């Protein structure tokens, strides 16, 4: 089912190569990460801007979990890209990080996406910043079978990375709430249609985005008897299974840790009604 051997995480003070505005509050961070051991699609890293140097800052205290958007290997490490949206103090500090400054990084972390079987169609559903988790999955799934990527956001400017997905040669379908790109409406409407397409076989559905979006995607997949995996977001202090702050209730009782057991979990394994 899931991934191959997962590389051990490292802690490193990564070099900011670029920190670009992608329109509005959306940004693209490119980090030079020495010793990056590679990552599986769906893994993440913890980022602490301001935590390095002679006068480290401890307010805000906690690192922010960020999906690895993609990583380009280079001698001695990799250039790791992060797509993010400025939405609070932590992400504002990240946005303020200038080229040549350092950002502390711990990663790669977590359990990533299972890949589709050879020939199985992958249906990727991304909403808002959730799009950032899906790029490397789309690339890996493309090598195994047909891939349809459904991206949704409030408006066209929030469809981060859409050109990158198009460049992968996957089928791309868009939805925006204001109709400024693709279909007007929610991305889950696109999923409903895709699942109903004639000849749609044993699709594997992947969803990452706001909780209501993932929950709806899980319902639609279940109605069609398809497997659905989701990539969850949560507050966490460490990212590697120690603080136990990111627990989500399991359907059968007990908890899964988003950082270690996830962020990718089978939709059916989660007690959605208890997810805050």
């Amino acid at each position: 089912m899931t991934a191959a051997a997962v590389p051990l995480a490292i802690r490193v003070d990564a070099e900011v190569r670029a920190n670009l505005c992608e329109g509005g509050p959306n940004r693209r961070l490119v980090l030079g990460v020495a010793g990056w051991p590679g990552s599986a699609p769906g893994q993440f890293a913890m980022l602490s801007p301001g935590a390095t140097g002679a006068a480290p800052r401890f307010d805000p205290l906690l690192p922010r979990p960020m999906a690895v958007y993609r990583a380009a290997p280079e001698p001695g490490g990799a250039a790791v890209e992060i797509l993010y949206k400025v939405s609070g103090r932590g992400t504002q500090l990240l946005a303020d990080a200038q080229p040549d400054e350092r950002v502390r990084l711990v990663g790669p972390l977590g359990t990533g996406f299972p890949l589709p079987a050879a020939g199985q169609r992958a249906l990727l559903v991304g909403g808002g910043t959730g799009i950032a988790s899906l790029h490397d999955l789309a690339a890996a799934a493309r090598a195994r079978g047909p891939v349809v990527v459904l991206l949704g956001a409030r408006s066209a400017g929030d469809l981060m990375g859409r050109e990158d997905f198009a460049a992968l040669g996957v089928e791309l379908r868009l939805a925006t709430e204001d109709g400024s790109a693709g279909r007007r409406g929610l991305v889950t409407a696109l999923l409903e249609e895709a699942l109903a397409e004639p000849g749609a076989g044993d699709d594997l559905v992947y969803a990452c985005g706001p909780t209501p979006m993932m929950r709806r995607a899980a319902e639609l997949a279940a109605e069609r008897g398809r497997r659905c995996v989701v990539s969850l977001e949560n507050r966490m202090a460490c990212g590697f299974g120690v603080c136990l702050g990111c627990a989500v209730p399991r359907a059968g009782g007990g908890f899964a840790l988003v950082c270690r057991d996830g962020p990718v979990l089978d939709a059916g394994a989660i007690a959605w009604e208890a997810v805050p």
Partner: protein
Amino acid sequence: MSAAPVDTAVDLGGIALRNPVLTASGTFGYGSEFAPFFDLTRIGGIVAKSLTLEPRSGNLPPRIAETPAGMLNAIGLENVGVDAFVADKLPLLPDGLAVVASVFETEIERYAEVCKRLTGVPKVAGLEINASCPHVKSGGIEFGQRPELLGRLVRETRRASSLPLLVKLSPNVTDIREMARVCEGEGANGLSLINTLQALDVDLATRRPVLRNGLGGLSGPAIRPVALRMVWQAFQAVKIPICGIGGIMSAEDAVKFLVCGATAVQVGTANYLNPMAAAEVADGIAAYAAGQGCARVAELVGTLEMPGGR
């Protein structure tokens, strides 16, 4: 670090430590989670996550929240239980690392039973009685806040085990010196302080607490000055050694605790944001002592120049 001719070894109430840095219970898992990040024998020891007689699954989320220079948590003492710790977790730890087992329970008899099960287990160098965890309603807070209850708890756990016994004190008391004296009088070999400060934050959009549990424990650099004050006060009140805890992010922070009277320290919340923090603190203390011309790190302990002496 080879240049520093400083003796870093300390004796924490019968627990021999290669250097004065441990990790605080609940912030370091069962230890092996940190093996990818550094060789665990670079630090003196670890205090493992608090153990109960049976496994516990913890509180509903949200369990943590960020606060100014700190964080709130109400995890609910989720743990694998004492038997699974001994069978599955201890064997993963390297020799030469002092492992202190933290013990938490809801009744004195159960505390004593957990202590018994840990006694005689290879690799367990000592016990830390968690008398202060502020977020399980029926549990720890009452032991740590009432001198007579605390005294009974220390007496019974002392009787249950021959291992060196540390008692982790709650800061949520009027006079930490009274609690420190009670523990010393009942035979504790050392004190760990402070545990988290009981705290609350509010989500104004819902007018509900930010944590599902309501109240939580505050940790991080925000609490460090409170911890330093309490370590200093306890140091004045008792002769048994003190392990200082509270918002240590750097070696300089740790040295402040030594100066206030701590024989050793525990790095806690810092482990979350920097998984190499404890190792860096250990290295930095040795470098600091060398820079001060100390032959032994222990020379720094209790060297605070307090105006008026107290």
